[in-house]
């Protein structure tokens, strides 16, 4: 019988500083020490362990099509994530999972996909963006609208530049900056500005709760129906397998039944996230 609580050991192979300062973000790539089966879906998460500090649930930001490594982009926030930020390539962490439902991307074939992210919220989206771009022929138009408080807070800066060659990307920052040539304003405003069309489209949004709220409102205003809008929710988690009882919103455990929800479903659940 499998013991779900025992993590598999994985080595950090590279660390990239995305954002520094108080709300630092680093991107880690890891490889399992032993050969392990970790097949996952876009939008699923993994429980990362720093032994002696504890565990933290982090979404996988690499594509399931990549077998070499798992990628996690992590905001320094508490005990475990701070410890992760202090680690170096070669260090060993624990990984268990994958957990959660993931995005139903199989159902999205032949559709236009619109990704709308804010800050670290691009990380869970990155997994689908990478997958969709690799299998571009399976989807119609791909569009990414992404913003953060300042240009320094944007993650995957170089990758985004590279990606612009393959798909349409609209970036934004909250306030004016000297060399900023793209949109200035909040992400929902950028969405209203670019007016993506709802026909045969799915919009996926991740970011701070306030941003998500207004992005959904913007999308509704543009004619998107609730079941065309997908987002992810977060709560404190300990077990990751629907037993420890703390991440629930209504009868759903986010770790098991979530974190991906269509707005049509999420809006019927209590706002306890």
């Amino acid at each position, binding site marked *: 019988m499998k013991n779900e609580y025992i993590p598999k050991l994985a080595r950090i192979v590279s660390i990239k500083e995305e954002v520094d300062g108080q709300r630092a973000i680093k991107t880690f790539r890891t490889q399992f020490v032993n050969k392990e089966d970790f097949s996952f879906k876009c939008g699923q998460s993994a429980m990362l362990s720093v032994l002696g500090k504890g565990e933290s649930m982090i979404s996988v930001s690499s594509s399931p099509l990549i077998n070499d490594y798992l990628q996690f982009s992590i905001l320094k926030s508490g005990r475990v994530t701070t410890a992760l930020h202090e680690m170096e390539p070669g260090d060993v962490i624990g990984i268990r999972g994958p957990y959660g439902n993931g995005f139903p991307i199989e159902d999205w074939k032949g559709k236009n996909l619109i990704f709308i992210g804010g800050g670290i919220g691009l990380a869970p989206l990155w997994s689908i963006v990478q997958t969709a771009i690799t299998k571009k022929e399976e989807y119609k138009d791909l569009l990414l609208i992404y913003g953060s408080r300042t240009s320094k807070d944007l993650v995957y800066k170089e990758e985004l530049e590279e990606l612009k060659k393959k798909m349409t990307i609209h970036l934004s920052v909250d306030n004016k900056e000297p060399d900023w040539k793209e949109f200035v304003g909040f992400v929902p405003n950028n969405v209203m500005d670019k007016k993506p069309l709802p026909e045969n489209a799915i919009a996926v949004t991740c970011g701070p709760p306030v941003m998500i709220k207004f992005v959904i409102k913007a999308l509704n205003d543009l004619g998107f129906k609730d079941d065309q809008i997908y987002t992810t929710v977060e709560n404190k988690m*300990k077990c990751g*397998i629907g037993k420890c009882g703390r991440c629930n919103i209504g*009868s759903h455990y986010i770790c098991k039944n979530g974190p991906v929800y269509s707005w049509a479903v999420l809006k019927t659940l209590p706002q*306890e996230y």
Partner: protein
Amino acid sequence: MQMILSKMNFSSWLKKLNSYRIFAPVKSGEVWSYELVEKPENIILDYPNTIIPPKKVLFPQREVLLEFESSSEQEIKLKEVIPEETPSVIFGIRSCDASGLAKLEKIFKGGFEDLYFSKRKNQTILVGLACNIPPSPDCFCTSVGGSPYSKDGLDILMTDMGDEYYVESVTEEGEKLIESAIGLFNDPEENVKKELEKIHLESEKKIKRYIKDIDKISSKLPEIFETEFWDKESLSCILCGICTYSCPVCHCFDINDEVICTFPLKGKRVRTWDNCQFPDFTMHSSGHNPRPDKASRLRQRIMHKFNYFNENCMELLCTGCGRCISKCPVGIDIVEVLEKVRVYEK
């Protein structure tokens, strides 16, 4: 299998079970609790109710999940710690607590299987004792689908018949436990069977607390989710953990790393009971707390028991043992709260 065991033979039966670890209610001071019993002949099956239900035997308050060791960041050794295989018997379980264990089994074995609970559960035989007299004035098992002589979750049900016990096996494991000392048991006569039925029926009538229209309440709960009801009902709550720790079905837990030595790193990953009434239960590391006050936490406790679990598993997450009522330091009474839900008008 239905048998009669003379009370004089009870300890002889227990002695025959020397290959098992035996747990039973033990009194210390004024407090009864399920403990590992060294001398089974000292077991007294006449007790009010334990403070902590027998869940603590299968789901202990502290459980070491794994041990870790590391001399450098590049090298880590993990050691899985799983419960040892020792067959056990728990004696004297009340029907409410037994059905609680059955519910816990659904939670821990459903979906991802919880190895720690399963290992213990699979090697534990549960011997129940029907409540001829309600062990607490706050008992309300009959309102939530139970009864004082329910066999749900049990391997054997015993009923006190005065000088003897009526012993019924419910499962094969239970039958084996009786057969291992079959010489001590007699077949029940017809009039004893009738007497048993009478005792059971009467025991049900002695339960004073009752929740009217529990199904309606269960489906009404979401309607009053956003109302002031919860603010009012939770006013006197002090946010302690008594109601949940003493609950036979509350199963929420925390996992923490306990460090014994920082260099070289050595420690244990430990699971401990946790509960929805504590502030750190749901608080995000950002400081945001989705259930920030006592109203939202009382609501969570009631919703989980009477609505969410019902939605997921088609049954209530409450066994009517009454512990949360008897032990609440400020007299919050779940039966009354539910009655107020029933009559509440927005």
